[in-house]
């Protein structure tokens, strides 16, 4: 299907139905992609993007998970924080970047903070939903058999909320990909997002398509990996 579409695209460019200025032929994009890999451009910029994604995802999902569990288990805590979360969550995270740069400067910290924020909210909301909806019978069973708070967390709360938490992790991952690329377009000199912007500035359309292809592959590979991991981690949902 994809190969067929690429073949049609190639033919339409060659017979001059499509302009190569806007739609460079896939073969040319492929050659450019290979060249940028071979000269190390994608390795260096890809590493910068992956680093931001990994740190943002790790920090954001960890904090989101911990706060989600706390809010899920404590009614008063939930009632206090719910309106604050509700107010901040809908703000596009990229719009917060200028404010964050005022506090943290224009270096790496502000970028990581905004990416982490993008992972934090989906994880917080999914974990909160997962924990609140754990059937009370599981807590009752655990209580009658003498579970302490740590046992409860390890043996009941974590596994019972895991399917929803993993759903949140998948949304957080997508959010992290979007925000990392957006942050790099806006304010970075490294990373795949900065390459996209630089390609536009220099009207290097082949490089633009090639970089977008790398970003798409990155998204597909990471999402697929997390999906496979989810199936392995929650076999009782199969």
């Amino acid at each position, binding site marked *: 299907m994809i190969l067929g579409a690429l073949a049609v695209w190639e033919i339409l460019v060659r017979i001059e139905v499509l302009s190569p200025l806007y739609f460079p032929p896939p073969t040319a994009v492929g050659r450019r992609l290979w060249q940028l890999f071979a000269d190390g451009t994608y390795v260096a910029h890809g590493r910068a993007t992956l680093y931001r994604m990994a740190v943002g995802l790790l920090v954001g999902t960890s904090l989101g998970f911990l706060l989600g569990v706390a809010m899920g288990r404590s009614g008063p805590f939930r009632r206090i924080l719910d309106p604050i979360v509700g107010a901040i969550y809908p703000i596009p995270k990229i719009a917060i970047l200028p404010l964050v740069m005022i506090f943290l400067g224009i270096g790496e910290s502000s970028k990581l903070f905004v990416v982490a924020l993008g992972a934090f909210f989906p994880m917080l909301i999914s974990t909160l939903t997962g924990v609140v909806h754990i*059937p009370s*019978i*599981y807590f*009752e*069973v*655990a*209580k*009658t*058999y*003498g*579970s302490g708070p740590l*046992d409860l967390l390890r*043996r*009941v709360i974590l*596994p*019972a909320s*895991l399917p929803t938490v993993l759903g949140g992790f998948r949304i957080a991952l997508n959010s992290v990909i979007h925000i990392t690329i957006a942050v790099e377009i806006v304010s970075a000199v490294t990373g795949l997002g900065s390459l996209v912007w630089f390609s536009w500035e220099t009207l290097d359309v082949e490089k633009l398509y090639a970089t977008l292809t790398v970003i798409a592959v990155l998204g597909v590979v990471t999402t697929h990996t997390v999906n496979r991991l989810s199936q392995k981690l*929650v*076999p*009782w949902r199969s």
Partner: protein
Amino acid sequence: MTGFVCESLGFAYPTEGGVTEALRDVSFAASGHEIVSVVGPSGCGKTTLLKILAGILDPTAGTLRFSPDGNGNRPKRALVFQDHGVFPWLTVADNVAFGLEMQGVRAAERRQRARRFLERVGLEEFADRLPHELSVGMRQRVGIARAFVSDFPILLLDEPFGALDAQTRLLLQEELLGIWQGERKLAVFITHDIEEAILLGDRVLVMSGRPGRILEEIPVPLPRPRALAAPDRPEVTEIKWHIWHQLEKEARRQLSIPD
């Protein structure tokens, strides 16, 4: 001796329309190695009573006293639920060993004890399976095995066979009686099935409609070990109809239907 005494137990909870009273003035005692069956109409507070005995809920009136165990503490109580009581993320063996794990029993020992009980309930070949791979009846056997293997002196069973078909229920009743015969614990058995209450219990407590009260306490004059054919005996039939008329009266009262 293991036992407890309920004195004028009551339980009420706030609702939108005010306060709902689930239990009122419930008094009874149980001790030793008996099975006390509790029957009553739907919504009469049977499960609430069991949750109070389990320590999940605190009564809002009255007192509940347990005779202390060897360490001077309240005796531990194992609860068996109608369904969904087994953890779907744990294997059958880990579910059965859950109580032992919470008591701090070492992994090797709890595995061994869980396996031994799984053999007794005929589930040894399913030890490493997850509960969703089992039938409802098999899952109930896991719940029962978990309660017995934990070796708590008091068993609280909340309609454990309520979701099963008649044939499976009969088999599991037999299995439960068989295990209980060997382990001999104090058990409180909640059911809406009058025959089941008589067949398993040493006495039957009949509860009224909401707010639940104990209407009557009926001793079951059947020797142990019991055969499942016992319900056909005339004294069982007599008790059964007596209880049935009590419950019918309660149902009429609840629905405001004259006798």
